[in-house]
């Protein structure tokens, strides 16, 4: 534990390198996870998922820089594309759901359980 704490301090105060980006992306990812887990509004949950996907992009681009390899960036572009597609479908689902149930609060959507 102590060693990794020292590592952590080293990362914070040292030269900016890939590890910084990784930690940052992890933090953003975690924030996204918290959003998904706690918010009631479906749309905000969707946005939290976008945050998660973006943190992945940050990873990819940082690795791309680190490895001097463009694949990461291309991958990131695909991730953005997919995120867009998902957002579209997700919002479509939200709309059809809203049309039937008049709510976008996920904790009121529990018709099926058990």
């Amino acid at each position, binding site marked *: 534990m102590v060693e990794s704490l020292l590592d952590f301090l080293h990362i914070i105060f040292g030269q900016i390198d890939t590890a910084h980006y990784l930690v940052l992306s992890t933090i953003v*990812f975690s924030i996204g*996870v918290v959003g998904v887990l706690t918010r009631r509004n479906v749309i*905000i949950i969707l*946005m939290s998922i976008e945050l998660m996907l973006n943190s992945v992009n940050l990873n990819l681009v940082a690795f791309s820089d680190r490895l001097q390899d*463009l694949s990461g960036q291309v991958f990131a*572009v*695909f991730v953005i594309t997919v995120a*867009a597609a998902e957002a579209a479908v997700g919002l*479509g689902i939200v709309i*059809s759901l809203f049309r039937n149930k008049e709510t976008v609060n996920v904790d009121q959507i529990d018709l099926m359980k058990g």
Partner: protein
Amino acid sequence: MEVFLFYTLAAILVVFAIFTVTARNPVRSALYLVSALLGMAGLFFLLKAEFVGAVQILVYVGGIMVLFLFVIMLVSVREVQGERRANRQWKTAVVLATVLSVELIFFVVGGADVFRTEAVKQGVITQIQTANTQNVGQMLYTNYLLPFEIASILLLVAMIGAVVLARKEL
């Protein structure tokens, strides 16, 4: 300079990300997300990935977020005052998410040694950074031609799907 820029952008990103998931009003939440994504785009630029950064701004800020706002307007116009933001499990969720993030960071930091012991390679990105967009484009249309084409179908499917789901009558 790089350090400064990194921390500034990181701060923007993290702070706005937190705002995004805590804002009461979904519209505000969306706007905070836009800000966070802009910060992210800044980081991309910092990493010399101009193309991805640009796509980030164009697609996300310009496209996806507009869609979000549009839907927000459509479905949740009225905001009930005093309605809870978070669901009933939020305390547990926060604790567990914290545990998860601690584990993630612990693992990331533990494994990131790989990236610090080796010297940074002088590769294509630094060599031909001016041509980043061109290179990415070339890769997209050669190495990643197939995924690119699949992605197009994917977008089509998303479109059809959104239409199927959202239209009143089909």
